[in-house]
């Protein structure tokens, strides 16, 4: 246990909505072992969730955590991590968002909020420094996310506060739901908005007037300044600032890694992609913004100028927006994509899982598995933006056919039957959104991710940015991290990135500032130094990465205890192993079973996990000081 008077706010706020009681704990016992953010959230979840608790059970808890470096001037230190039981997979649920909420939470004196129980009627939580109240949200129930933020601010009578909230999607316990933070940033994936909805928790608002102390002030400021200036000069920084993540879609398409029409192909026709290019979006950009402390403002605001959606403002179209709506659903109009995204944002739906289940529905319709008799009379065709937007609304309100889609594509395919599971592309129950047949290390990271399909937990973006052999050797000690189609040595590079991702989330660092796709981004050695300068807790790069590995293993163990996932759950959808990519530069690529097995064996070996079960070994857990995972009353024994 270390004294956390520097860097951390020092407190964990616990709120039991069933009995309307708030209490305080110290962050100390979890530091530095679990660092903060996602790390402490997951430690709390593992310790407190007994086996058999379902995601919507009042006994489930949902943890909100600001990273350990949030509230300081470390570039990109802005992330809020949210962790609970995953409503789609039954395993770990985990996501994060930027914005300004996390820093405000720390200024209010809290590193984490843990919500348990269920309120009798809709409420929201209002934190004003050390004053915490649970307030009625009856009038806000049913409101879109923008309406809710406005109503919360009006109810409190202050504009200059930070709000996170759910929309109708979360209220209706729609599984592809999200949590919207600071009006524009989104905790997508894992259906965490539905967990808030199941607790009758509409929003959390915070205002903080306190401060975060720094141990070694002058050296910290000099480091923050020089790293920030370096980031602005990096290759790709200008594109990131100008276009946001949208600019990387052509590079993925050039590697045949953008799915088209629900994996009919993993290459979007060039003419189609040109219509929805980053330049096309840039043409209607009306503003841009940055999260707390970030020198790379990648968030953009677009205003639709023409057509039926003219006047609609939409925040932060991401690479995902183009992959999901432009590729997977084959929409070829920037305005339609922005409108679809904005509908999701307002209804509090995750664009990845929502577009995934819609892709499943369209594919089923196109192949005669379902008809207008199943879809409330709606014809479902690829790229039909009106029908897609209509489906988004039906999902958000669980209306008609939307009630089935609101279960996510795996469950929806089980409800419909008739072989419709052929069109449900998911990993562990969470929708897959990425083209994964060509980039093998990207694929491995996405498929083995403990939270279900996810490219934000280690998947090798090094392949997209084509790291040289020298760059690969310097960071991973291997030569292949930049070679998309190679299966060799991807496991070792992935293990590094899994640890680094865990560190970024635990410290609250946005990975666009880190050495994820650009080898010159902020590296773990620099983060260890920032951590030590900020907190006064001496932590080496190796110790920091070990904390990342510990967190990854802890999440893996959560899955073992709560979802029973094994090696069988670490395989891509069968069709992506059988059907080759039809076009593009890497036409013919697929994930070969024997090569996948070899890569998976290598991956488990790197981790010292059992190759048959995929579970961490006792020795590994001991080495990571995770004794709590080895034997727990009522939980499986390793």
């Amino acid at each position, binding site marked *: 246990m270390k004294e956390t008077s520097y860097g951390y706010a020092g407190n964990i706020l616990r709120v039991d909505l069933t009995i309307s009681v708030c209490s305080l704990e110290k962050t100390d016992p979890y530091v530095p072992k679990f660092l903060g953010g996602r790390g402490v959230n997951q430690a709390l979840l593992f310790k407190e969730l007994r086996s058999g608790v379902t995601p919507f059970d009042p006994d489930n808890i949902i943890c909100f955590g600001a990273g350990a470096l949030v509230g300081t001037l470390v570039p990109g230190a802005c992330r809020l991590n949210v962790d609970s039981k995953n409503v789609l997979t039954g395993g770990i649920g985990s996501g994060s968002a930027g914005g300004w909420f996390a820093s405000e939470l720390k*200024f209010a004196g809290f590193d984490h909020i843990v919500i348990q129980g269920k309120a009798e009627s809709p409420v929201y939580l209002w934190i004003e420094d050390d004053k915490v109240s649970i307030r009625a949200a009856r009038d806000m129930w049913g409101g879109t996310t923008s309406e809710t*933020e406005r109503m919360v601010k009006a109810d409190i009578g202050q504009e*200059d506060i930070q709000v996170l909230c759910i929309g109708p999607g979360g209220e209706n316990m729609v599984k592809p739901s999200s949590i919207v933070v600071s*009006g524009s940033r989104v905790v997508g994936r894992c259906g965490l908005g539905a967990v808030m909805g199941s607790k009758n928790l509409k929003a959390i608002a915070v205002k903080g007037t306190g401060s975060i*102390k*720094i141990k070694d002030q002058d050296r910290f*400021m000099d480091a923050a300044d020089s790293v920030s200036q370096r980031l602005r000069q990096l290759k790709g920084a200008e594109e990131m600032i100008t276009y946001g993540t949208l600019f990387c879609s052509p590079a993925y398409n050039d590697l045949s890694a953008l799915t088209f029409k629900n994996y009919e192909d993993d290459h979007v026709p060039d003419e189609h992609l040109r219509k929805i290019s980053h330049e096309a979006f840039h043409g209607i950009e009306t503003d841009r913004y940055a999260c707390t402390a970030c020198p790379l403002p990648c968030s953009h605001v677009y205003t639709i100028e023409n057509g039926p959606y003219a006047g609609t403002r939409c925040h932060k179209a991401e690479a995902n927006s183009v992959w999901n709506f432009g590729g997977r659903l084959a929409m070829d109009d920037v305005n339609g994509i922005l409108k679809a995204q904005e509908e999701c944002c307002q209804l509090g739906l995750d664009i990845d899982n929502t577009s995934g289940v819609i892709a499943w529905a369209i594919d089923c319709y196109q192949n005669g598995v379902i008809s207008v008799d199943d879809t409330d009379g709606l014809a479902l065709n690829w790229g039909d933006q009106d029908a897609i937007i209509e489906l988004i609304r039906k999902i958000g309100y669980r209306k008609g056919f939307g009630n089935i889609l609101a279960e996510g594509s795996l469950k929806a395919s089980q409800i419909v039957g008739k072989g419709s599971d052929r069109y449900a592309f998911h990993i562990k129950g969470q929708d897959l959104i990425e083209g994964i047949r060509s980039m093998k290390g990207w694929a491995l990271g996405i498929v083995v991710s403990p939270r279900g399909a996810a490219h934000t937990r280690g998947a090798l973006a090094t392949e997209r940015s084509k790291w040289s052999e020298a760059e690969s050797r310097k960071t991973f000690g291997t030569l292949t991290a930049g070679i998309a189609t190679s299966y060799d040595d991807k496991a070792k590079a992935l293990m590094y990135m899994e640890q680094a991702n865990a560190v970024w989330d635990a410290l609250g660092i946005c990975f666009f500032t880190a050495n994820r796709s650009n080898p010159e981004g902020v590296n773990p050695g620099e983060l260890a130094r920032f951590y030590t300068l900020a907190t006064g807790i001496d932590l080496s790069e190796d110790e920091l990465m070990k904390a990342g590995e510990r967190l990854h293993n802890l999440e893996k163990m959560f899955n073992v205890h709560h979802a029973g996932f094994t090696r069988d759950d670490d395989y891509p959808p069968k069709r992506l192993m059988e059907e080759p990519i039809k076009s593009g530069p890497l036409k013919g690529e697929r994930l070969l079973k024997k090569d996948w097995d070899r890569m998976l064996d290598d991956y488990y070996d790197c981790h010292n996990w059992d190759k048959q079960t995929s579970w961490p070994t006792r020795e590994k857990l001991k080495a990571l000081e995770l004794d709590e995972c080895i034997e727990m009353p009522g939980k499986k024994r390793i």
Partner: protein
Amino acid sequence: MPRVKNLKACTGCLRCELACSYHHTGEFSRSHSSIRVNKPLLDHDLPAQVNVLTAGQGVRPPCDLCSGQQIPFCIRFCPESVLTDESEHP
């Protein structure tokens, strides 16, 4: 006192606020800063606001142009060059 020379470029990252509070207190805070940034995201018709305080308001200290520093912290840490310490009519 730093002058706002390019408000349109403000991204709302709060780096100037945090750097300013560090100058005054050695800590990071939004309240102990001479600068208050407001970047409204729900109402885009409203422009960003960057206010530099000459007189203290509540716990807020007034701007002293970072006495002792070569470049005021708010200018040094703003990635978008929103603020300047040059006079309006050189």
